[in-house]
């Protein structure tokens, strides 16, 4: 499982404050502890109320790169902010994200190609959130078709079925999980799959239990990657164990430790 740590996001009070005050120590601390906990990459998001995201994003990228040598996931709804981050990213970055709308695809696939970045594609469009599996697949196919047409490598495309909170979209959860599996059949080579996990438990009690349970089920449906809180140790251990049960790691008595040695 390719784990992207979600904690450097300006919507969190402490991070928002650190970005505003340009406090490197706080950001770097969050970067290091997420990597130590097993994250393979880090998501960077200036937050919804950032005053100057065009300079905040490159500052975040450079601040994190001073202490961590891992890919960064440049997370913004504004293509210009994404590009500002891509310009200074050292390791192959990940763009978070495009939707299936043509005007978004045109800009973001071009950016991904120019900066040799991976790209997250949300199965969303200006018409709204898909209501079932068929709509998700249709949007996924649109994204894949556009990327193929533009010669963007499909192995670098991460399709996100858009995880919805279980307390508002209970009837959709099964479709979301099945989409993870079916996205793989769209093309050869297949696209990668990703979820933004925490959304599933938005507004619920027992958030960690819901996150963890959904995640284990998603692993069983073949999920490749997730944006999540790597400091949730029980979640991280559950992922490793789910992969163990699917025979993705060789069992040994210290299997949790073995996976952390990667």
């Amino acid at each position, binding site marked *: 499982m390719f784990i992207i740590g979600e904690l450097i996001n300006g919507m969190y009070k402490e991070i928002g404050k650190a970005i505003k005050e340009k406090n490197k120590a706080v950001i770097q601390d969050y970067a290091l502890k997420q990597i130590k906990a097993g994250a393979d990459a880090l998501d960077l998001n200036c937050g919804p109320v950032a005053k100057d995201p065009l300079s905040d994003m490159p500052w975040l990228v450079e601040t994190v790169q001073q202490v961590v040598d891992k890919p960064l996931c440049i997370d913004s709804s504004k293509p210009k902010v994404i590009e500002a981050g891509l310009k200074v990213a050292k390791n192959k970055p990940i763009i978070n994200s495009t939707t299936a709308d043509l005007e978004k695809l045109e800009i973001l696939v071009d950016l991904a190609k120019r900066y040799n970045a991976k790209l997250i594609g949300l199965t969303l469009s200006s018409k709204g959130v898909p209501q079932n599996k068929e709509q998700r697949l249709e949007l996924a196919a649109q994204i894949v078709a556009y990327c193929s047409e533009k010669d963007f490598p499909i192995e670098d495309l991460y399709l996100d079925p858009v995880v919805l909170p279980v307390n508002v979209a209970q009837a959709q959860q099964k479709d979301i999980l099945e989409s993870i599996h079916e996205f793989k059949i769209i093309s050869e080579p297949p696209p990668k799959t990703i979820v933004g996990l925490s959304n599933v438990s938005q507004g619920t009690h027992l958030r960690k239990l819901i996150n963890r349970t959904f995640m284990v089920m998603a692993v069983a449906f073949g999920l490749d990657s997730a944006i999540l809180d790597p400091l949730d140790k029980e979640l991280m251990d559950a992922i490793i164990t789910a992969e163990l049960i699917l025979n993705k*790691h060789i069992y040994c008595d210290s299997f949790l430790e073995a996976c952390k040695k990667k």
Partner: protein
Amino acid sequence: MIKQHLENWSSEINTVTIGATKEEGGSCRYNIKIGGEKTLPFLFKEGSLPCKPVIAYEVWDTVPSDWPQELVRFYKDVWTNPIDWAEKVVKEYHADLICLKLAGIHPEIGKTPDEIAKLLGEILRKIDVPLIIIGCGDDQKDNLVLPICSQVTKGQRCLIGEVTQDNYRTLTASVLADGHNIIAQSPIDINIAKQLNILISDMGLPLERIVIDPTVGALGYGLEYTYSIMERLRLAGLNGDKVIASPFICFVGQETWRAKEAKAEDSEFPQWGKASRRGPLWEMITAVTLLQAGADILVMRHPEAIRKVKEYIELAYSV
């Protein structure tokens, strides 16, 4: 036309260096690198296989009691003196490296640590190829003698073993202190192989200094089982499981010459053909099969079998 499918592996097998040259503080003419594979054995088009498999000749510190005539005839002139034995395989048979088996320290024979220390000192003076040192298999005696071997050969970057899941601490500590590599033995069991590598690396020995002995069976004695275990470990290593991405050492000679098909004299089974052909063929076929499974070091006995397997390796690597 069918398109050729080439697998793209995400990781590679660790490279282990055995032997230290004079420039590196040792006394070898050269060092030997094993491992480093980026694909499965012999799939040269798919990825790089930077290190050729190597063959170590067995040399014992005592006269082997159960070797058949077919082996005795090559070694009986030297086997009362391990130095002569080692010199013979280096000079006459051009051994890449030597595997010194300390069978004599077994409580039933009772060679002392002092005798072994003296022997090793002399070997280092006279023999200039990389060295593998193997205990007698008695945990208590190995834990007494092998740390001394490790000290005497400090800086020579030997490969020393074997450690098991139940007995790894003493030797790992010595090997770590004296700059050697270690052999981790597991009983044809991937789960234990992995666990043992974790236990060793938790003591501070880098994974790049571990060679796995998966325990092998000779042709007709579980060879296919060994093969599947080695293949599974290798696939996991190439797929990014760093913990078990270790090269393999296979004790081919020891297993082959236990099989009655290899060691039976002509008179026992006349219909089986001559022992002088049958025995080395048995060892050779076992070795070549294990090369296909990913063996990096073959420890062998019969000079003719070794010559043939070397030819096989050279031929495969020349295409």
